[in-house]
């Protein structure tokens, strides 16, 4: 069934959008990522104008993250205190990110920079996570199932001032690292048009030392607010949020997120991480491939009046 999208001004198959929303929703619930880094390129691919895709995706992430976070709240796997600290950083970061984005746009080549950002960050994070979780799986196999609780290593993160107790995460650390993580994620989120979960989740695990089970819910909690803020910015400045597109994506997305959360609970943390790593590397590989291989059509059409 074809549906004409009023803001995007294109006609697309409604079931295709529902399906895409569902698949990305499952991944979102499983890994605590908003799924934007998958959905935004997919929307480009089916012919949605990039500006509309990025803005509408932000709105859709609000829905799937909200649905996901409710499931996590019930199981008490959301560190609200940590989430709030990350959120403060995130809002500052997304403000900075939008300033940076507009500056890059004035220079031209913003598309390329966005893609390079994707390739570099997805590649780095994917590779790191992959190696780390592979080692973890090997270790747990050697230990023969008797998991030995290892004491967390003390690194520079633990020697900073302004310490705060994060009961749910079982951490007593300075607020500076989570604030900085929030700012960094906010900047990248604004530039890349994503929620930033795929950067925040590994940062929380490896940099802050949070337990994996808490990370997903907390990341979703933070993403809701950052993407809601981004949606409002896009809606009021660029008029590029397509509510019909968003509804179709989020109907699939919220259902998917519920299913995904339940799958995620049944899986081991290492398995969850290695799957996320593989997915991140796959998207990175695809984007790198597109940059390196000669495209079939060298020309592209944009709105008039470039500088």
């Amino acid at each position: 069934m074809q549906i004409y999208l009023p803001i995007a001004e294109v006609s697309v198959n409604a079931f295709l959008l529902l399906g895409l929303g569902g698949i990305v929703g499952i991944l979102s619930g499983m890994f605590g990522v908003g799924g934007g880094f998958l959905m935004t390129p997919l929307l480009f691919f089916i012919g949605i104008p990039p500006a509309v895709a990025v803005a509408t995706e932000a709105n859709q992430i609000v829905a799937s993250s909200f649905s996901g976070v409710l499931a996590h709240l019930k199981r008490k796997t959301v560190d609200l205190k940590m989430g709030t600290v990350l959120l403060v950083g995130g809002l500052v970061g997304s403000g900075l990110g939008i300033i940076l984005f507009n500056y890059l746009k004035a220079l031209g080549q913003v598309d390329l920079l966005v893609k390079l950002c994707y390739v570099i960050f997805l590649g780095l994070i994917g590779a790191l996570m992959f190696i780390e979780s592979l080692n973890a799986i090997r270790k747990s196999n050697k230990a023969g199932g008797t998991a030995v609780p290892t004491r967390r290593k003390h690194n520079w993160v633990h020697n900073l001032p302004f310490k705060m107790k994060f009961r749910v995460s079982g951490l007593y650390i300075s607020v500076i690292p989570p604030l900085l993580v929030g700012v960094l994620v906010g900047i990248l989120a604004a530039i890349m048009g994503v929620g930033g979960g795929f950067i925040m989740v590994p940062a929380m695990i490896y940099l802050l030392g949070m337990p994996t089970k808490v990370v997903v819910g907390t990341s979703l909690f933070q993403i809701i607010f950052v993407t809601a803020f981004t949606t409002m910015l896009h809606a009021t400045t660029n008029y590029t949020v397509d509510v019909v597109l968003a509804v179709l994506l989020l109907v699939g997305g919220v259902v998917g997120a519920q299913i995904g959360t339940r799958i995620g609970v049944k899986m081991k943390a290492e398995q969850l991480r290695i799957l996320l790593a593989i997915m991140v590397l796959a998207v990175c590989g695809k984007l790198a491939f597109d940059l390196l291989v000669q495209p079939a059509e060298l020309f592209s059409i944009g709105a008039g009046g470039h500088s």
Partner: protein
Amino acid sequence: MIRLVALLLVMALPVRAEEIVLGLSRDEIAITATFEGSDIEIFGAIKREEAIPQGDDLGVIVTVAGPDKPVTVRRKDRRLGIWVNTEAVDIDVAPSFYAVATNKPLPEILTVQEDINTRISTRRAIRSVGRSAFGSDRFSDALIRIRAGEGLYQTLPEGVWVKDDTLFRARISLPANLTEGDYRAEIYLTRNGQIIDLYSATIPVKKVGLERWLYNLAHDNPFLYGLMSLSIAIAAGWGASAAFSLLRR
């Protein structure tokens, strides 16, 4: 403007041996939520005071043009191993939709000079004023190629059916990815490559109903629209969560 001059010139002719009488299958196109594209049928007759001229080639050209919009065409090139946009050419006038239907291939029924004056062929309907940089033809060609691939630019050399040199009919199909605005339908009558009559009509294409309402809200009251989008998202997220916990019970 040039078309207007051409029209006035045609109007100014003292006696027209042949003129167009036209009908349109629809005088406006409404874009609804389930819009999947639309066909316009353009039909008419050639009215004459005298007998059909013998031996001359009759040409009927039907064009449908969407609103003009400036575009930028960019070309990718390899830099340090990756493909990046390197060159860009602004095209000042490019119709968002353009179809040319003729009863015979265009060059057979329209002289090059007439085409230059009236800008009928797709190639001439696109203009980049002021900037005729070297190689900008490649950019215009690319624009035509990409838009033709999307069904937005159509050249239909046998798209006009003519019977007894008197009745004619053309069907233009508009794709689903239409831009709103006034579409111009123009019908040219030619003899030996010269235009002898011209008729034009406007077909408004506009969003209606829910599509219209959402579009207006997004532009006139963006803050409210943003809040509405967010409320829908939150409600849907909560709804799905509630529905699933009910299912589990």
